[in-house]
């Protein structure tokens, strides 16, 4: 189990958007005890200490996270300079869904994309491309999302009626976002 447990944990760390607390790992891996998880994480941490690794397994904000090794920061800087668009494909798709279907609930976005979008929504909020437009009168009063004025600005739209078709949208986004990053 130990080898596999380590592998599962590495896999989850790779996919996790946020530092992963041991508790969350335990919920995800049935049958694994806290003690086993902790020792697997520690082993993993040692594996990552090797010089031949590109990431470090660090304990931050109450959880574990794989982070790039700080000594590679110059490469990362250069890498991100040549990155064509600062929004991931997933973020782009999520943004498109919100733009076209707004006002929309997170649950509806997730149904359309078929994956969890919590982290992406946060990223889009941070970038000021979407905002909370209200709350739905449903149990839990879920948040309703919509795009912002900045969204219109970034995509050079007068108003939402100017939105291109979904297909055109994905074609133009790469370039516009690139330009947007340059001057932001």
């Amino acid at each position, binding site marked *: 189990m130990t080898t596999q447990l380590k592998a599962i944990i590495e896999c989850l760390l*790779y*996919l996790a*958007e*946020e530092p992963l607390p041991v508790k969350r790992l335990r919920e995800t891996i049935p049958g694994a005890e806290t003690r086993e998880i902790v020792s697997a994480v520690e082993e993993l941490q040692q594996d990552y200490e090797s010089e031949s690794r590109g990431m470090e397994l660090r304990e931050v904000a109450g959880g574990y*996270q*794989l*982070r*790039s090794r*700080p000594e590679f*920061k110059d490469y*990362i*800087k250069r890498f991100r300079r040549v990155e064509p668009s*600062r*929004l*991931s494909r*997933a*973020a782009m798709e999520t943004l498109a869904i919100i733009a076209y279907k707004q006002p929309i609930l997170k649950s509806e976005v997730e149904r359309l994309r*078929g*994956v969890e979008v919590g*982290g*992406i929504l946060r*990223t889009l909020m941070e970038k000021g491309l979407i905002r909370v437009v209200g709350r739905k009168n449903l149990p839990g009063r879920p948040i309703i999302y919509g795009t912002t004025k900045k969204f219109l600005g970034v995509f050079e739209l007068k108003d939402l009626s100017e939105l291109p078709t979904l297909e055109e949208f994905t074609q133009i986004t790469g370039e516009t976002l690139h330009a947007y990053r340059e001057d932001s």
Partner: protein
Amino acid sequence: MPPATNDASGDGSFSVRLEPFEGPLDLLLFLVRKNELDIYDIPIARVTKQYLEYIDLIRTLNLDQAGDFLAMAATLVHIKSRMLLPEPAGPEEEAEDPRQEIIQPLLEYARLKEAAALLEKRHLLDRDVFTRDFVSDELFDPEEEELVRVSLFDLLSAFKEVIAHSTGKVLLALDRFECTLEEKVSDILERLGRSRNLLFTELFTDLHRRELVVTFLAILELLKLNLIQVVQPAQGGIMRVYLVTQPSPAYGSDDNTT
């Protein structure tokens, strides 16, 4: 559309399997398979009969796609009638098998179906395998400011600023202990020993004008001895004083430093 399979097990029960047929070709292929037929030599009468039975069933079950299947039914019936015609007696010309009309599309469809099955078996992204689906901004440390050692000129202008700001302050001379350069040097080293680094301006807080000068000279002295270094972000900004702990500091060229 859900096809129905006649349960031939003999107990008279009738089961509807909810495995959808994707269309007439799919149904035809199913019949070929079910009867273990050679696709190049389909007994057309038998297949046509079964095909029509299925359409009836689809109709009975009120499944709305029955229409899609009718064209193929017509084709099958047509082929069947042509098969019944006597073969032309021409010695050279071999008669074309009327079944060619369905064999080719059926073969092609069977191949494509196999191709689809092969695709289906691959490790699909977001079904079997996953990648990170968020921007990696959080996964590396925010860019550290690139620090450079400040030049004597920078130090002097920073000191000028300090003096300019100190003039407005009312300082109580009698409370102050006027120290020597040596004392100031060890004072700075001691403070840096406690906190790893200090703001340049911090060293001058609440000092007499004379003491300001002594402090500045002490800084210059310490720089000369390479016991401290003063750095600031490459693009300018706040200056910090660090204790030099290792002989070769990790900062860039220091040719222009004091």
